[in-house]
C-alpha cells in the first residue's frame, strides 16, 4: 500500500465520489497497481486508473514504440516513435494525473522480475500480449495472493476475467491451452473496451463495490455486438492450482 498526499482540488473527483464515497476514494489513493504492458490494453487501463486517483502505478514493458502501435496505444504520441514505452507512458500519465506516482520498469516479465514487481502491488493488470509472460506473472500473483485481472484482444474480439487467488479458478483452469499466435490484427477500440473493463475490475476490487467477473470468462465480439460469459469452475486436475485443494 502506498500512502500519498493528495494535492488535487476538492472538485477533482466530485463526479465519482457519489459512487465510491470518500472511503473508496481513499482506498484508491492508498493503492498500488501493477500494469504489465503499456500497449493497447495498458493504455486505457493505466489511464482510467490514474484518472480515478489510484496512488501508484507500476508500469512494465520492454518494448519501444513503433509506428504500427499508434492505432490503439494512445499513451504514446506520434512523435514518440522509437522511445521506450514505459517512459512515454510515464510522461503522459504524469500530465493527466500528476498526483499518481508512476514507477516505470523498462524490462521483461520473467520469473525473477515477476515476484519482485508483484510484491508491491495490490492488484495486477495483465495487459500483456503473449501467454508465456502471462503465465509467469499469473504464478507470481497467485503465490502472493494478489488479484490478477486478465485481458486479451484480437481483431474485433476480446476476453476478460478476474482471477482471485485461492478463491476461484486460476488462469490455467480458464485457459488450459492456447492456439499458436503471431502478430494479431486489432481495432484500437477493441483494446479500449477490454482495457477499460480491466480498470473497472480493479476499481471494484479496491473499493469493494460491485461484483467481480471472477469464475467466468467474459467473451466479446465487437463485430457482431455480442457477448457471453463462459462460467468456469476450478479444473479438478489443474496442473497449476489443484495441489493442496481438497
Amino acid at each position, binding site marked *: 500500500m502506498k500512502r500519498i498526499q493528495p494535492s488535487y482540488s476538492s472538485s477533482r473527483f466530485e463526479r465519482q465520489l457519489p459512487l465510491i464515497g470518500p472511503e473508496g476514494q481513499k482506498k484508491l489513493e492508498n493503492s498500488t497497481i501493477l500494469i504489465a504492458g503499456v500497449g493497447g490494453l495498458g493504455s486505457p487501463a493505466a489511464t482510467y486508473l490514474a484518472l480515478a486517483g489510484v496512488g501508484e502505478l507500476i508500469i512494465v514493458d520492454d518494448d519501444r514504440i513503433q509506428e504500427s502501435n499508434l492505432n490503439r496505444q494512445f499513451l504514446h504520441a506520434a512523435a514518440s516513435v522509437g522511445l521506450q514505452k514505459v517512459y512515454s507512458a510515464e510522461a503522459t500519465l504524469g500530465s493527466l494525473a500528476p498526483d499518481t506516482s508512476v514507477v516505470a520498469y523498462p524490462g521483461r516479465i520473467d520469473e525473477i522480475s515477476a515476484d519482485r514487481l508483484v510484491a508491491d502491488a495490490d492488484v495486477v493488470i495483465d495487459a500483456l*500480449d503473449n501467454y508465456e509472460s502471462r503465465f509467469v506473472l499469473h504464478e507470481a500473483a497467485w503465490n502472493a495472493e494478489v488479484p490478477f485481472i486478465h485481458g*486479451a484482444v484480437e*481483431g474485433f*474480439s476480446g476476453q476478460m476475467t478476474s482471477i482471485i487467488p485461492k478463491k476461484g479458478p486460476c488462469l490455467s483452469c480458464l485457459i488450459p491451452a*492456447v*492456439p499458436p*499466435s503471431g502478430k*494479431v490484427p486489432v481495432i484500437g477500440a477493441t483494446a479500449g473496451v477490454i482495457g477499460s473493463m480491466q480498470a473497472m475490475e480493479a476499481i471494484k476490487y479496491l473499493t469493494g463495490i460491485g461484483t467481480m467477473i471472477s469464475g467466468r470468462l467474459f467473451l466479446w465480439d465487437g463485430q*457482431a455486438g455480442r457477448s457471453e460469459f463462459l*462460467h468456469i469452475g476450478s479444473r479438478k486436475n489443474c496442473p497449476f492450482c489443484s495441489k493442496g485443494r481438497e
Partner: protein
Amino acid sequence: MKILIRCYARFRDAFGEEQALELPEGATILDAVRTLAGTGPDAELLIDNVGNIRSYVMIMHHDVRVSPMEAESVSLSDGDMIILFPPVSGG
C-alpha cells in the same frame, strides 16, 4: 435435428458468426464440430489430423464448458446451441 453453432474471434472469421447444422439424432458435440469444420482449408483450426478437436478450442454448451476430450460423450438435442471460442492473446 437442428443445432446452432456460434463462433467467436478467428473461428468466426473462418466459419461465420452462426451456423445452423442438420445432424442425425444422437449426434455429439464432436460430430457437430467436425461437421462445421468440414474439409475446407480452415478445418485445421478446429480439428487435428486424426479428427480430434484441438485442445485450445473452448466449447460452451448450456452455459457449461465442455473440454475437447469430452466432446464425444456429450449428446446434443434439437435446438441446442454450442459456442466455440479460441483464447485470444493480443494486448
